[in-house]
C-alpha cells in the first residue's frame, strides 16, 4: 500500500487504567516519543461510542495505523477489528495493572511498565502494513477424496451433500474398503436413556452394516465421480489450485483440479502370520477377526462351521490384543481401539445361532469406546458371553479341536480351555505412503547404526499414495507408528500439508463409527480450506489471516533453510534454488522468518523489524538503577494467553518484564536475542508450546525448531561475556496460570543474584 501512513492513538481509561496509571504521561509518551499526532482518550473504548470514535477517524481518512492502548490484544477482539488498517495493541490491563499490586510502593514501576508498552505499540505499528491477499488462486469447489472405504465414501457423501463436487479415487475394483466384508456392525447408538443399569434390559445389539447401501448412494450421487482401480500419479499445487493426475486401469490418465483433498486410505489388517504361537497358519481353525467376519457373512445367519472339517462350532475362544499392545518384535505397540467391541459382536454371532455355544473372550483390558460401547459390552454379558480376564500364551492342536493355554489374571493361575475355533483379535496398520522425511533421516543420521536403520526403513517403505510434487516429499508426514501427524487435541484433521485432510484409521486406530465421524469433520475442513484459499486467508490456527510471507530475492543466499524447516512443506524451490512461497499452503507461523539467516523473509504485519522496534523502544534504566529489564517472547497461542489469564486471576508478575507476543517460537529470529542483549536487557525468557513427540505446538514443529536453534545461543552469550542463564527457553501450556508468571519472577530473582547486564547505554 503506497498510501500515506496516518498514525492515530487511542487510550482506554476504563477497567481501572485511569485510576492506576498517569494517563497524561502515557499520552505524552505516545505523542513526543512515539510521534503520534494525537491520542484520544475514552473511558470505555470498547463501547459502541468508543468504537465509533475510532471508526469515524478511519472513515474520515485520519487513521491508517492505529495504536490502541487498553486491554490485551486477546480481549475485545471483535470490537477492535477494523478493516483495512494496521493495528497494534498496548496491553495495559492484563499486561500491567492486573499483573501488579495496587500499592503506593509499586506505583512507579507499574507506570514504567505502562510507559514501555505504549512505546512498544507505537513502534510496532509503524512497521506494519495492511495485509492484502495475493490473489494467487480462485475458488475451486472441487474436492478430491482418496480412498474408497467407509471413511472415503462418507467424506464424499458429506462433501456432496454440502453442495461441493467430489472425485473419489479408489484403488480397488469395488468400493467398500477393509470393512466391505462386515456381516454385522457394532451398534452406533447407546441404549435409550430410560434403560436402567440392570440385567435383562433392552440393550443395543449388532446391526446391519449399511455398507452396500452406502456404496449405492455414492454411485448414484450426481456430484460424486468415482474412479475405480485408480491411483494418483502426481499431485501438485496448493489449496485452491491442486492438480492431480489420476491413473486409471480403465482408460487414460485424467488430470483434475481441486480446491482441497481428503486422504482416507484407512488401514491394512495386521499380518497374523507373525503370530505362530497362536497356531495361525498351522490350522485353518485359527482365524483373524477379519477372516471370521467373512465366514459369518458367507454363513449368512446359518450355523458357523469349523473350517477344517465343517463341524458346527460349539465352543469358541477370542484372544484379544493378538499381536497388539506388545513390545515384541513385529507386534503393534498400540491398541487398535476397535477389536474389543468387534469380538463382542462376533461372539454374539455364535450365541445367536447356538445358545449352547460356549463363547469366551480372553481379554486383559476390555476397551469399548463410543457411545454404545459400554451398553454393547453389557449386551454381550446378557447374551452370556463369558468374559475372562486372561492372557493367552499358546494355541495348540488337541485331537480335532484346539486348546488355548492362558493365565487367568483374576484367579492368578495358569490354565487352559478346549474349543473348536480360535479367533485372534488383530489390529490395524495405517495404510500410508512413505514417510516423506525418510531420506532426510538417512542423510542426517548421526551414527552409522542410525543411518542403517533409516536406510532399512526407506527400503521397505510402502508405495506413495498422494505422489505430492513437494519440496519435502511425496506423502503426508507421520508422527508415530506410521500414523499421520495432526495436532491431536486441537486440530485432529489438519495434517502437515495444508489443504490435505486426514480422516479415519490412517491418522489413528479407530472403529467404523469413529471413522465416519472423522470423515465428516475432514470433509468440512476441506471445504473450509478451499473457501479460505479463494480469499487468500489462512486456515487454522490463524484463521482468516491475510498476511503471507514474502522475501527480498536480491538478499537471499539460497541456503534452503526455509524450504527445509517449514513444518508444512509450504515452500518449494525453483530451478535456481530460490524459495517459492505457496501462499495458501502457508499457515503463517513465521518459522521461515525465524530460519532466515539474512533476514529477508517477512510478513506485512509481522516482521523482523516490527518486533525489533518494540525491543528497542523499551526504556533501559542504567546499571545502577536496580531495575533490570527482562524480555519475554511469548507464543501467542498458549504462553501469552496464560499470562493474560494469570493476571485476570490476580497472580503477580515482576514489573521488570516486557512481553512481546510472537506467532510461534519458530518465528523467533536469533537477531532479536543478540540485539536485545546488546541493548542492555538483563535476561530473556522464551515461552513456547510443548515440543517433540507429545507436542502441543500449534505449528507442529515450530517450538521444536526454535529449541534447536536456541541451543546454540549459549555461544553468543559467551562471546559477549554474559552468563548463559540470562537466556532461557520454557515450554508453557495455556493452563500454566501460576507457572508462567513464576518463570518470569524467577528470572528477575536470578538477575538479582548474578547482577545487571553491563551492556546498558
Amino acid at each position, binding site marked *: 500500500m503506497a498510501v500515506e501512513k496516518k498514525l492515530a492513538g487511542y487510550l482506554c481509561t476504563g477497567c481501572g487504567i485511569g485510576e492506576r496509571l498517569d494517563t497524561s504521561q502515557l499520552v505524552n509518551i505516545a505523542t513526543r516519543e512515539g510521534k503520534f499526532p494525537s491520542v484520544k482518550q475514552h473511558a470505555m473504548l470498547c463501547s459502541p461510542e468508543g468504537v465509533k470514535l475510532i471508526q469515524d477517524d478511519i472513515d474520515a481518512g485520519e487513521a491508517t495505523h492505529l495504536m490502541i492502548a487498553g486491554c490485551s490484544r486477546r480481549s475485545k477482539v471483535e470490537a477492535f477489528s477494523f478493516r483495512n488498517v494496521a493495528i497494534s495493541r498496548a496491553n495495559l490491563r492484563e499486561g500491567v495493572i492486573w499483573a501488579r499490586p495496587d500499592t503506593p510502593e509499586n506505583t512507579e514501576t507499574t507506570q514504567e511498565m505502562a510507559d514501555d508498552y505504549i512505546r512498544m505499540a507505537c513502534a510496532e505499528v509503524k512497521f506494519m502494513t495492511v495485509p492484502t491477499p495475493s490473489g494467487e488462486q480462485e475458488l475451486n469447489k472441487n474436492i478430491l477424496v482418496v480412498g474408497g472405504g467407509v471413511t472415503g465414501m462418507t467424506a464424499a457423501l458429506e462433501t456432496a451433500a454440502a453442495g461441493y463436487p467430489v472425485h473419489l479415487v479408489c484403488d480397488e475394483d469395488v468400493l467398500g474398503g477393509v470393512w466391505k466384508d462386515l456381516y454385522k456392525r457394532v451398534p452406533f447408538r447407546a441404549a435409550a436413556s430410560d434403560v436402567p*443399569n*440392570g*440385567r*435383562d434390559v433392552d440393550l443395543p445389539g449388532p446391526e446391519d452394516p449399511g455398507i452396500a447401501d452406502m456404496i449405492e448412494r455414492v454411485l448414484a450421487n450426481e456430484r460424486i465421480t468415482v474412479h475405480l482401480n485408480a491411483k494418483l500419479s502426481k499431485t501438485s499445487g496448493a489449496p485452491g489450485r491442486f492438480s492431480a493426475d489420476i491413473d486409471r486401469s480403465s482408460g487414460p490418465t485424467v488430470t483434475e483440479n481441486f480446491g482441497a483433498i481428503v486422504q482416507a486410505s484407512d488401514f491394512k489388517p495386521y499380518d497374523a502370520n507373525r503370530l505362530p504361537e497362536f497356531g495361525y497358519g498351522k490350522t485353518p481353525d485359527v482365524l483373524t477377526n477379519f477372516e471370521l467376519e467373512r465366514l459369518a457373512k458367507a454363513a449368512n445367519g446359518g450355523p458357523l462351521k469349523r473350517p477344517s472339517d465343517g463341524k458346527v462350532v460349539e465352543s469358541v475362544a477370542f484372544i484379544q490384543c493378538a499381536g497388539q499392545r506388545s513390545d515384541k518384535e513385529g507386534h503393534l505397540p498400540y491398541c487398535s481401539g476397535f477389536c474389543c467391541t468387534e469380538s463382542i459382536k462376533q461372539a454374539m454371532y455364535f450365541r445367536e445361532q447356538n445358545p449352547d455355544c460356549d463363547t469366551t473372550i480372553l481379554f486383559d483390558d*476390555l476397551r469399548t469406546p463410543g457411545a454404545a460401547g459400554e451398553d454393547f*459390552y*453389557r449386551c454381550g*454379558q*446378557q447374551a*452370556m458371553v*463369558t*468374559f*475372562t*480376564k486372561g492372557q493367552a500364551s499358546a494355541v495348540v492342536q488337541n485331537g480335532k479341536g484346539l486348546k488355548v493355554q492362558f493365565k*487367568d489374571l*483374576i*484367579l492368578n493361575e495358569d*490354565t487352559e480351555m478346549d474349543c473348536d475355533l480360535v479367533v485372534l483379535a488383530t489390529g490395524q496398520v495405517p495404510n500410508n505412503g512413505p514417510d516423506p522425511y525418510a531420506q532426510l533421516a538417512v542423510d542426517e543420521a548421526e551414527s552409522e547404526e542410525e543411518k542403517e536403520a533409516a536406510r532399512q526403513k526407506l527400503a521397505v517403505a510402502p508405495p506413495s499414495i498422494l505422489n505430492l510434487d513437494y519440496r519435502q516429499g511425496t506423502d503426508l508426514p507421520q508422527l508415530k507408528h506410521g500414523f499421520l501427524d495432526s495436532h491431536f487435541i486441537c486440530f485432529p484433521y489438519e495434517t502437515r500439508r495444508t489443504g490435505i485432510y486426514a480422516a479415519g484409521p490412517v491418522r489413528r486406530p479407530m472403529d467404523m463409527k469413529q471413522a465416519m465421524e472423522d470423515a465428516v469433520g475432514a470433509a468440512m475442513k476441506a471445504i473450509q480450506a478451499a473457501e479460505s484459499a479463494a480469499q487468500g486467508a489462512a486456515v487454522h490456527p490463524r484463521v482468516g489471516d491475510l498476511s503471507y510471507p514474502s522475501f527480498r530475492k536480491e538478499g537471499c543466499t539460497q541456503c534452503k533453510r526455509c524450504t527445509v524447516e517449514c513444518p508444512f512443506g509450504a515452500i518449494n524451490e525453483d530451478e535456481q534454488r530460490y524459495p517459492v512461497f505457496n501462499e495458501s499452503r502457508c499457515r503463517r507461523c513465521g518459522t521461515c522468518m525465524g530460519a532466515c539467516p539474512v533476514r529477508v523473509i517477512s510478513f506485512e504485519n509481522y516482521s523482523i523489524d516490527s518486533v525489533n522496534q518494540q525491543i528497542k523502544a523499551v526504556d533501559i534504566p542504567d546499571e545502577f538503577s536496580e531495575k533490570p529489564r527482562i524480555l519475554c517472547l511469548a507464543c501467542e497461542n498458549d504462553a501469552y494467553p496464560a499470562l493474560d489469564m494469570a493476571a485476570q486471576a490476580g497472580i503477580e508478575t515482576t514489573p521488570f518484564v516486557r512481553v512481546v507476543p510472537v506467532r510461534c517460537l519458530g518465528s523467533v529470529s536469533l537477531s532479536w536475542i543478540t540485539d536485545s542483549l546488546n541493548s542492555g536487557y538483563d535476561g530473556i525468557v522464551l515461552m513456547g508450546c510443548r515440543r517433540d513427540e507429545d507436542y502441543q505446538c500449534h505449528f507442529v514443529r515450530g517450538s521444536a525448531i526454535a529449541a534447536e536453534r536456541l541451543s546454540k545461543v549459549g555461544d553468543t552469550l559467551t562471546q559477549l561475556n554474559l552468563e548463559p542463564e540470562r537466556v532461557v527457553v520454557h515450554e508453557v501450556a495455556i493452563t500454566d496460570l501460576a507457572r508462567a508468571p513464576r518463570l518470569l519472577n524467577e528470572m528477575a530473582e536470578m538477575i538479582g543474584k548474578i547482577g545487571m547486564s553491563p551492556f546498558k547505554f
Partner: protein
Amino acid sequence: MGDLNTAMIEKYRNRFLKEVEANVEEGEWVKMCMQCGVCSGSCPLGKFWEHPPQEIFMMIRAGKRDEVLSSESVWMCTSCYNCIVRCPRELPITHIMHGLAHYAKRLGLVPKNQPTAKFAQMFWDNLMVKGRVNELKLGLNLYFMNGIGDGVKVALKNQKIGLGMLKSKRMNPLEAVGGHAVKDLKGFHAVLKKAQELEDKRLADHGA
C-alpha cells in the same frame, strides 16, 4: 440334600454359571460383573476372604463349582452393603453372596464348623420356634456350638458381658424358660411351612 447336589451336577455339567442363574437368589446378575474389583476393595472383611467377590464371580464363570460352593469366603459377608452401593454395574452383591451361601447349605456343601453358617442356622431355627428371636437361648447356643467344653470357656470369657447386659436390664434370664412369642403361633407356623414347601418345590423343579 446330597441327592439334590448330584441332581444339580448331572443337570448343569460344566455350566455352573447357568446353575447359579437358575438356582441362586439374584444369580442372574453374575454374568453382568465387569471385573472391576471395587467390591473386593470395599469389603470390610476383604482381607479375610480367600476369594473376594470379584474372584467368586470369575470362578463361577470358570465353572469352579466345588471351590465356590464349599468356600469359606461367601460366609464372610457382614451384610454391610458397601459393595452394593459402590458397584458401578449395580449388582446386588450382598444378596448374591447370601444366595450362594444358602445354596451351598441346601446342597450340603458348607465347610464343617463354619461358625457363621452355624450361627446363621441357629438364628433361623431360634426365630422359627416362637416367631421372635430369643436372644438368651441364641447366645447360649452360640457359646456351646462347638461342644460343651469349648462352650464353658467361651461362656466364661463372655461372662462379664453377660453381667453388664443383665445389670442394664438388656438380658433377661427368664427368657430361658418362656420368652417372647407370636400370639398366633399356629398361624405363624402354618404360613412358614407353606412358604418352605413352595420354596422346596421350586428348587426340586430346577434339579429335575
